[in-house]
């Protein structure tokens, strides 16, 4: 790490939001000005408030006023409007999320905002609809405003260079001024311009980072060849970029998901895109002490074992920030819902793990969470109906009616919500999304090239387990009747501890490579998708489904409001996070769990699947062991596993396991040359391991 990076780190880690413009007064000036005046005001007023620090090579601070004025109402007021309408029946069926978004960085870097202006002009010439004309005029003004704003940087940097006493810094400032005078207005011509153009674009909508390695690599390799860039310089610029990305939310935000970057993955011609910029990005994330952006590495069928091994090594150092995605599975999922291959290849993971089509979509990436268990809970209370089923299929068909009732409620809510959200024009977001100019329609009204609306299914594993238990104990073994099961739940298992134990000790749970239960996940998924096909979201396109629990912690929220469930869960305990196995039931080891996870069909779960493996650091504490881990991951992806994150255990979790051993039956821990189940250890040994974790983390 060089001293420039250290100084920048000092700034961001000392205070929050250090790279913000003091531009509060500009908004009011703009409001009073007529149209011809506005661009001049932006350029001049920004030039006055821009602070040039001593070390940055990337110009740009977060504007706080003038760019948000492009949004007419904010999300919270939309939510309030809807809550008013839905609160009375918003029991425990849904919870709203938020949309993450990745701008069309590639378009800006290669065509510049001048390119966007040309597109706007030519469209403006042919539209006749007044509404559309007005929208295109707003887009034009926004593009011009961005240019004026970045030109203000060029101006401020030039002035700063003149005043600068250090010759070296003065030269740097002049070079920055030169870069800012060209990009993002014009196409980038080298690495420095590309990364500056990218950063300005990021500031406009500081969310997802898209496929950064793919954007930078053409400029990187050309500059390296010409001898005008070194690998080290490129690394430092990427590090500076990441520090500033981190600063967009500051250190008070302790979570990692606000900014998500994807690397690797297929190139447009179907090759593996792991390049030198991929390695630099991974290195930067690994070396910086910050915790954003997080990076998903896209594994392809052409990714070599060595490339994967490089990422496993980085992941071992920063398992909190580096994750894995499987291109073939995700791209297949996107193709199955009608996305063109070229666009599917350009997907990103945004926010936590939401799949988005980079720069050309409004995926409704996390429209909200559905509590799938609500429908089964309701059915199990309908004791009269429970008496009449001859086999599991009959039972399942009846269950689908309860499910469709809940989903109907969800889809009607979803449509209404999006119609309220559409009141926001979101001009900048529209400007940075392919399709909106062409359709002359704002992004929130379906202007993007691709429109979807993604809901996440909470309780999916609990539901599959519950159905598996019904199938086994009621229809296969004829051990319990549905009425008896209903009574267990009604009493929150009180007085039925033996029956609960029978279920936990003998029934077939997700995560043990057992088709009996694993395939129920897909069966439920097919039911959900089949039903969803009857509905069209407000913006058009289709409803898609993921399994994320998100920042909203939907599994805890829904669990808290739900009664006991047949998998042995007590009332108000959380549901499974994404596709985690039920605590204590994944007793067959890492390969079995991954095989279960790999069976999930991407055509029914098209968005996020989160496979959060908790493994002992000691399983991977030598390179030789990580080679074996690498082998396991390689196979998992070849089998079609969609996503993977490795979570090395924390002392905290071990302490929890010690206090609630029944919930941690499957936790395997290595002790020197052996591994065993943590809960079967003596307290002394448990204490020792906890100590070990306290030391390693």
């Amino acid at each position, binding site marked *: 790490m060089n001293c420039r990076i250290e100084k920048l780190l000092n700034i961001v880690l000392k205070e929050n939001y250090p790279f913000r413009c003091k531009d509060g007064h500009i908004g009011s000036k703009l409001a009073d000005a007529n149209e011809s005046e506005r661009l001049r005001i932006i350029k001049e007023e920004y030039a006055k408030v821009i602070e040039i620090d001593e070390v940055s090579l990337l110009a740009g601070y977060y504007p706080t006023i003038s760019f948000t004025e492009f949004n007419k109402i904010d999300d919270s007021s939309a939510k309030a409007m809807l809550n008013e309408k839905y609160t009375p029946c918003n029991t425990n069926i849904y919870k709203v999320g938020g949309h993450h978004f990745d701008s069309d960085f590639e378009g800006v870097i290669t065509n510049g905002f001048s390119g966007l202006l040309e597109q706007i002009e030519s469209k403006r010439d042919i539209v006749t609809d007044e509404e559309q004309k007005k929208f295109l005029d707003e887009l034009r003004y926004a593009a011009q405003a961005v240019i004026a704003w970045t030109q203000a940087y060029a101006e401020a940097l030039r002035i700063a260079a003149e005043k600068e006493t250090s010759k070296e810094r003065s030269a740097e400032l002049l070079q920055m001024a030169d870069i800012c005078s060209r990009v993002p207005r014009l196409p980038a011509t080298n690495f420095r311009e590309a990364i500056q153009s990218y950063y300005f674009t990021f500031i406009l909508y500081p969310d997802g980072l898209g496929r950064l390695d793919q954007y930078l690599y053409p400029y990187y390799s050309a500059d390296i060849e010409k001898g005008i860039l070194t690998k080290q310089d490129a690394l430092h610029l990427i590090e500076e970029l990441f520090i500033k990305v981190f600063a967009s939310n500051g250190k008070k935000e302790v979570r990692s998901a606000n900014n998500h970057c994807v690397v690797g993955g297929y190139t447009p011609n179907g090759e593996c895109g792991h390049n030198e910029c991929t390695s630099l990005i991974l290195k930067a994330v690994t070396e910086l002490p910050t915790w954003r952006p997080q990076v998903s590495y896209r594994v392809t069928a052409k990714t070599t*074992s060595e490339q994967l091994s490089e990422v496993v090594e980085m992941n071992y150092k920063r398992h909190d920030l580096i994750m894995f995605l499987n291109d073939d599975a995700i791209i297949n999922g996107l193709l199955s819902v009608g996305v063109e291959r070229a666009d599917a290849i350009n997907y990103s993971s945004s926010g936590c793990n939401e799949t988005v089509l980079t720069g050309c979509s409004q995926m409704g990436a996390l429209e909200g969470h559905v509590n799938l268990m609500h429908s089964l809970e309701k059915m199990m209370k309908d004791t009269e109906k429970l008496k009449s089923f001859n086999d599991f299929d009959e039972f399942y068909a009846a269950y689908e009616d309860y499910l469709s009732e809940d989903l109907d409620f969800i889809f009607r809510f979803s449509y209404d919500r999006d119609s309220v959200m559409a009141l926001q024009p979101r001009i900048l977001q529209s400007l940075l999304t392919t399709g909106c100019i062409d359709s002359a329609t704002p992004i929130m009204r379906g202007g993007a090239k691709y429109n979807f609306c993604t809901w996440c299914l909470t309780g999916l594993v609990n539901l599959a387990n519950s159905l598996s238990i019904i199938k086994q104990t009621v229809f296969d073994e004829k051990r319990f009747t549905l009425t008896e099961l209903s009574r267990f739940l009604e009493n929150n298992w009180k007085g039925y*501890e*033996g*029956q*609960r*134990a*029978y279920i936990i*000790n*003998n029934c077939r749970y997700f995560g043990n*490579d057992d088709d009996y239960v694993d395939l129920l996940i897909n069966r439920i998924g097919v039911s959900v998708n089949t039903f969803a096909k009857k509905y069209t979201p407000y913006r058009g396109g289709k409803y898609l489904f993921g399994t994320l629990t998100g920042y909203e912690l939907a599994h805890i929220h829904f669990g808290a409001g739900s009664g006991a469930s047949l998998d042995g869960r007590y009332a108000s305990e959380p549901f499974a996070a994404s596709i985690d196995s039920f605590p204590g039931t994944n007793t*067959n*080891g*890492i*390969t*079995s769990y991954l*095989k279960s996870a790999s069976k999930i069909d991407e055509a029914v779960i098209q968005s996020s699947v989160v496979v959060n493996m908790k493994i002992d650091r000691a*399983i991977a504490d030598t390179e030789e*062991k990580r*080679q*074996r*881990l690498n*082998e*396991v991951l*390689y*196979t998992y992806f*070849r*089998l079609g596993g969609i996503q993977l994150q490795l979570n090395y255990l924390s002392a905290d979790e071990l302490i929890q396991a010690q206090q609630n*051993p*029944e919930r941690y*039956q499957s936790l395997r821990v*290595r*002790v*020197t*040359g*052996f*591994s*065993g189940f943590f809960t*079967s*250890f*003596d307290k*002394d*040994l448990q204490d020792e391991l906890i100590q070990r974790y306290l030391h390693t983390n």
Partner: protein
Amino acid sequence: MEHGMIFDVVHGSFVDGPGVRTVIFFKGCNLRCNWCHNPESQSFKIEIMLYKNKCNGCGICKNVCPQKGEGCNLCGVCTQYCPSQARKICGKIRTVDEVMTEIEKDKAFYNNLSGGVTFSGGECMLQLNFLKALLKRCHEEGIHTAVDTAGDVAWESFEEIIPYTDAFLYDVKCFTDKLHQQGTGVSNKKILDNLKKLSKTFKGDIFIRIPIIPGFNTDEAELLKMATFLKDISCKKTELLPYHKLGANKYAALGREEKIYTVPSKADMEKINLIFNT
């Protein structure tokens, strides 16, 4: 069909032979090592284990018992209904097909690093026909096989399985016979003889595994004797397995007394490792 007594199956092990492995634990052993961390692997019979520290005294086990709590016939119903998982049944008769189903689950993970299946125990070579049938089936399906043995069986038993075995994990506890008898209850003559023969005739890999038990085999002279003996053995790797107390509450669960040793320090292990791996 051949069948045998199995007490555990572990999927995705990184420590029992090369690559990613499935480990099949056979029940029954002819050694009684004082430090054994799997005491439930020693008897050839099904056993009910009771972890008293987990038992909450609910009495459900008695209520569900088909024998009304008198004269246990090892049916295991009490373990099925135990809410605190204090009761565990250990040991199950499995057919070759059943075990193969477990092994095949991991087949996709074996890949390039010669991963495969490891038959362990107890002493898997004491259920020879069952073991041989499994090894044969694995080879028919192209699965790498390893046999984890203490070696105290007739040499003919090795000859039976060698054609279907790709690697042996061979335990050596100590060199001095008298010491061996004290620690394990049996002489090590056959064990060392078998290892010498194996070293000469076996074309696959031999991994020597030495448990390091302070107070038993950590005397320097003893370690040197072992190292000298092993110099003539052609093995792929010598692995040292430090003593640990993983099995402690298993002894209690079986109603047995455990002999306690001290856990070797990291420094001790490094020192001992120099004797074997330089």
